[in-house]
Structures are given as structure tokens and as C-alpha cells.
């Protein structure tokens, strides 16, 4: 192993080298910076990175800590003290976070080094990272395609070996879907499992922070560091945190996996369907029992999601008023002009669309018809999952109905983009956990595009879905395949 090959490593393998003192944390930061300089011109995964700060932290890193000396890329919606936190929005241009989010504090306590802020859809609103006001991030498997979103920067950085692992946020699929489209592992923890303190709020009843990694084991390692109760966050669950690595390696005998007939949708890409069918057969051959279940309200999830998420977003984004931070319009003639122009100039089109929709569904006369009704259907969706989990340990589905799509392909009609969340947003509505792992490839224009298998677990059952995902990963080679831009260093 030469220095140049280091970025190809996953977190667990990097740690072995660090602990054997074969490489120093400082070297790791230097090599990673060189890798970013080499490939990020093509990928554009990062919005900023503070090399000096990371190098300084590396000097004092304790490699014997759980993530000692491991650099982690951070979605630009999570506060890292002293660094920009733009949410890929013009309205936060120039903003610097005055403090560390709880997840960053916890990562540091585990020895990790936050390094680099990654691109995203503006305020995490989108499924392709095309809604970034800063730049487009390209999919490492095919540079003419999106990496998924909204955590597309973290996903692409990990897939292109310009990050060992990353953090993202998932409100309707924003960790799992870009993980699937970029060929890596993405975990959305149970609602309340990971603190959102210091994370810019999009939809507060849905948002969760979670890891994007090259392997399931790495996902467990990051979860061990970031999960847990936080007194500074009222929705944080005060429940014990298990060792997520402990169950990895167990086999699947006796594990019951549910297949929901409502997830066999028309319109899903046939290559995605074939890959999922094969993955289910494989899980069965590993000893898992496959059980048919029903989630009867699945078809309503996207409508419920877009009513509730936009309603919450319209309230959360009211704080961007140009008073305490962020963009402020020049020379306002009065206060209404100040607010209207500050927000009109600062927010991009998708954010504006969602503020309008959210304000409308909460407005007098429409609240009962849209918002309250959506909350009730949400309860039915939650009950669907509760019933299914009486029969099974986890549910299996595609993560996304299609592999990575081309830039501009789904931007003209917002509804088309919204339907990309069909398999992921129900988990956010129900507050349960989910993981996406690579399970095959689709062929498109002579390119291989990754496909993701989603496993959904009941609330606080992350250890179980990690265990199942690990058994699948260990017995397949999909996660070892590398995109063209990363393959070069793997061969070197």
C-alpha cells in the first residue's frame, strides 16, 4: 500500500493502518487533500474544506479512539464550528457556524476529524443535488448523471474515494437514495436516535442524521459514535445505544424478511426489479424466510410527505429573515420589502415552491383539508408498518425506483422528482430506520449504474438491519465494484 492508494480504503481498514502506526493521521489528511484536488474538479462533491483546521486536529488525534484519526465529510447543513454552513443556499452565503452540532461534538469525541463540507440540494429539498445554488455534483459512475440527493455531495465523495465516510441527513430518503444511486451504503436512523442539534431544520418531524459509507461495518462504526440522547434536543430518544458492530457476522437463519406487495409498482425500472428479485432470492439462500406483507396506505405516502414536509419547512424557514444572519436585501423601503426581497433574492426555486405549498396547506380554510388530513393518513401509514413488523424482522424493497438519471431529466415537473421518494419517504413518516446497500447494476448507454437494496427495520432496530445488510454484503461483491474515477487507484 502506497500513500496514493489510501483513499481507496474503507474506515475499518484505514483504522487498522492507523493503529499499527503504518500511517499517521496527518498523512491521511494530506493524502485525502491530494485526492480531492485530483478528482473533485470532475465530481464537485465539496463546497468547502478547511485543510489547516483538519491538519491541526490530525496532529493531536488519538488513533486508539473508536474513530481515531478518521476524516469524515460533512453535509453542508450540519454546523462545524468556524466553517461555512450554507445549506447550498445563497441566503446563507458567507455564514459561518458559531458552534459544533451535537453529531460533530460526538464525532470529535470518538477521535474523528470533520473534513470538508459537501454539496446538497438547497436546504435538503430534492433528490438529485441539482437544487444546489452552488454547483452540480456529478455521479462518479457516469458524470452525465446525478448522484441522487439531497445528500449527493457526501454520497459522491465517498463513492469517488475522496472521503472515507460522510454524514448526511434524511427527511424523505436523502441519505438512502443518493447512497443507492452512487453505489454505497446509507443509513437513516430511527427518528430521535441521532441528535439534530446544530443541524439546520427542514422538516422537524422527519429529519434524521446518518452515515454514508463504503461498507456496512463502517456504517455501524459511525452509528456507535453519533447515536444517543441529547439534552439539547427535545425529540432525542433517551434509550440505551447498543454496540452496532457487535451483531455483524451473525447469519440470517430464522430472520423473517417482509416483501410488501404495494412496493411492486409499475413504472419501476425493470433492471432495478430484477436486481431486487435476485437479492431477495439470495437473502433467502442465506437462511432468511421471505414473508409476504401488506402496507395498504403506501400509495398515499408521497402526498402525505409533501404536505407535511412543506408545511414544516415553511415554518422552519421563516427564520431566514435577513436580521441575525444570512443575506439581507439592500436598502429596503420598509419591513415588508425587507422580508420579501431578502427571501425572494436568497432562496432558490425549489425552496420557494415548497414555502408556497407549505404556507398554503397551513393557511386558514385549508389546514383541515390538507395538513390535518395528511397527519391522519400518516398515522395509518405508521400503523401499516407496526402491523407488518408483527410478522417480520425487516422489510425489503428497492431504495429507488430507478438508477441515477441524467441532469435535467426530472427537473421540469416537480411531481416527477417527488415520486423518486416513493420507497424511502414512508420510513420517515413512520419514524423507523432504513438502510440502502449496493445490490447490482443497471446498464445504461454502456455504463454501469448502481442499484440499492433497502432494508427497513422497526424503531430502534438499527442493529438488526445492519446485521442483515452485513450478511448480504459479506456474501456478495457489489460493494467492491468501483466507479471508473476510483478504479484507477484500486488497480495502482
Amino acid at each position, binding site marked *: 500500500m502506497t500513500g496514493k492508494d489510501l483513499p481507496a480504503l474503507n474506515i475499518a481498514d484505514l483504522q487498522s493502518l492507523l493503529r499499527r502506526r503504518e500511517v499517521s493521521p496527518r498523512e491521511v489528511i494530506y493524502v485525502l487533500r491530494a485526492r480531492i484536488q485530483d478528482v473533485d474538479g470532475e465530481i464537485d462533491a465539496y463546497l468547502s474544506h478547511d485543510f489547516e483546521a483538519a491538519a491541526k486536529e490530525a496532529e493531536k488525534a488519538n488513533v486508539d479512539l473508536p474513530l481515531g484519526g478518521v476524516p469524515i465529510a460533512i453535509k453542508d447543513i450540519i454546523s462545524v464550528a468556524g466553517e461555512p454552513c450554507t445549506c447550498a443556499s445563497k441566503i446563507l452565503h458567507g455564514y459561518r457556524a*458559531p458552534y459544533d452540532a451535537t453529531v460533530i461534538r460526538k464525532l470529535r469525541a470518538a477521535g474523528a476529524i470533520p473534513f470538508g463540507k459537501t454539496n446538497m440540494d438547497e436546504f435538503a429539498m430534492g433528490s438529485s443535488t441539482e437544487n444546489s445554488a452552488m454547483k452540480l455534483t456529478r455521479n462518479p459512475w457516469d458524470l452525465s448523471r446525478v448522484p441522487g440527493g439531497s445528500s449527493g455531495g457526501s454520497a459522491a465523495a465517498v463513492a469517488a474515494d475522496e472521503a472515507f465516510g460522510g454524514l448526511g441527513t434524511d427527511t424523505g430518503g436523502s441519505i438512502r437514495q443518493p447512497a443507492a444511486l452512487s453505489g454505497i451504503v446509507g443509513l437513516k436512523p430511527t427518528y430521535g436516535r441521532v441528535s439534530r442539534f446544530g443541524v439546520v431544520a427542514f422538516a422537524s*418531524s422527519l429529519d434524521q442524521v446518518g452515515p454514508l459509507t463504503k461498507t456496512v461495518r463502517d456504517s455501524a462504526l459511525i452509528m456507535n459514535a453519533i447515536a444517543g440522547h441529547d439534552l439539547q434536543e427535545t425529540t432525542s430518544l433517551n434509550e440505551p445505544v447498543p454496540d452496532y458492530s457487535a451483531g455483524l457476522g451473525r447469519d440470517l437463519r430464522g430472520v423473517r424478511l417482509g416483501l410488501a406487495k404495494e412496493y411492486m409498482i409499475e413504472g419501476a425500472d425493470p433492471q432495478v426489479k430484477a436486481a431486487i428479485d435476485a437479492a431477495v432470492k439470495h437473502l433467502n439462500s442465506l437462511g432468511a424466510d421471505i414473508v409476504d406483507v401488506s402496507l395498504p396506505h403506501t400509495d398515499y405516502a408521497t402526498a402525505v410527505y409533501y404536505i407535511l414536509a412543506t408545511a414544516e419547512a415553511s415554518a422552519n424557514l421563516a427564520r431566514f429573515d435577513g436580521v*441575525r*444572519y444570512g443575506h439581507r436585501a439592500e436598502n429596503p423601503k420598509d419591513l415588508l420589502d425587507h422580508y420579501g426581497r431578502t427571501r425572494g433574492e436568497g432562496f432558490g426555486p425549489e425552496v420557494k415552491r415548497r414555502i*408556497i405549498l407549505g404556507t398554503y396547506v397551513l393557511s386558514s380554510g385549508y389546514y383541515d383539508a390538507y395538513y390535518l388530513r395528511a397527519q391522519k*393518513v400518516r*398515522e*395509518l401509514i405508521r400503523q401499516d408498518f407496526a402491523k407488518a413488523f408483527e410478522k417480520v424482522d425487516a422489510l425489503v424493497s428497492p431504495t429507488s425506483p430507478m438508477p441515477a438519471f441524467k441532469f435535467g431529466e426530472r427537473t421540469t415537473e416537480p411531481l416527477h422528482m417527488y415520486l423518486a421518494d416513493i420507497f424511502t419517504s414512508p420510513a420517515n413518516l413512520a*419514524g423507523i430506520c432504513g438502510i440502502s446497500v449496493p445490490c447490482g447494476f443497471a446498464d445504461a448507454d454502456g455504463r454501469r449504474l448502481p442499484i440499492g437494496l433497502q432494508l427497513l427495520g422497526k424503531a430502534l432496530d438499527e442493529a438488526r438491519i445492519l446485521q442483515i445488510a452485513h450478511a448480504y454484503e459479506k456474501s456478495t461483491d457489489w460493494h467492491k465494484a468501483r466507479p471508473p474515477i476510483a478504479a484507477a487507484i484500486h488497480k495502482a
Partner: protein
Amino acid sequence: MAKTSDLDVAYVARLARLDLTNAETALFQRQLGDVLRYAEKLCEVDVSHVEAAAHAVPIFNVFREDEPRDWFTAEQALSNAPRQANGLFIVTKVVE
């Protein structure tokens, strides 16, 4: 459920304190009309016996000890202010 033709984007934009161009107003009027028509499918669901779920996990009345602790200095709190002076945010005039 309300008729989607009720959506008046220009009016809602004023409620949201969000200036839109004429082009944005027209575009959102059409696009959000489509989204709201799609959302009409929620009318099919019988919700007469369902309690609304604000959160998937019911959590109520979360308190912590009311103790002073180190937090922002005034300087840090003002560090991102578009306009500030004398340790204060300068805001747009709100009274005549």
C-alpha cells in the same frame, strides 16, 4: 378537500413574506396545481376514526434542569449579522 383552483400563489407569497417574479408566480401556480391535484387522492382515505400524528414517536413535555452554562458570547451571536453596531443587530425601521 378544497378545490385546487383555490390556490392563489401571489396571495400565499405575500403571507409567506416571499417576493416572487411574475414568471415564478405563473410557473408555481401551474406546478403546485399539479401537486395539489395529486394530493387529492388523500380524500379517498377514511380518516374518521384516526387521531392525527404530529410525530411518529410520541414525546411530550421534555425538560432539562434550568441551569446557566457557557454558550455564545454576544460577539459570536453577532458574528453573522448582516448589520450590527454597539453589540446590537441593526434592523430595518419598524415604526414610523
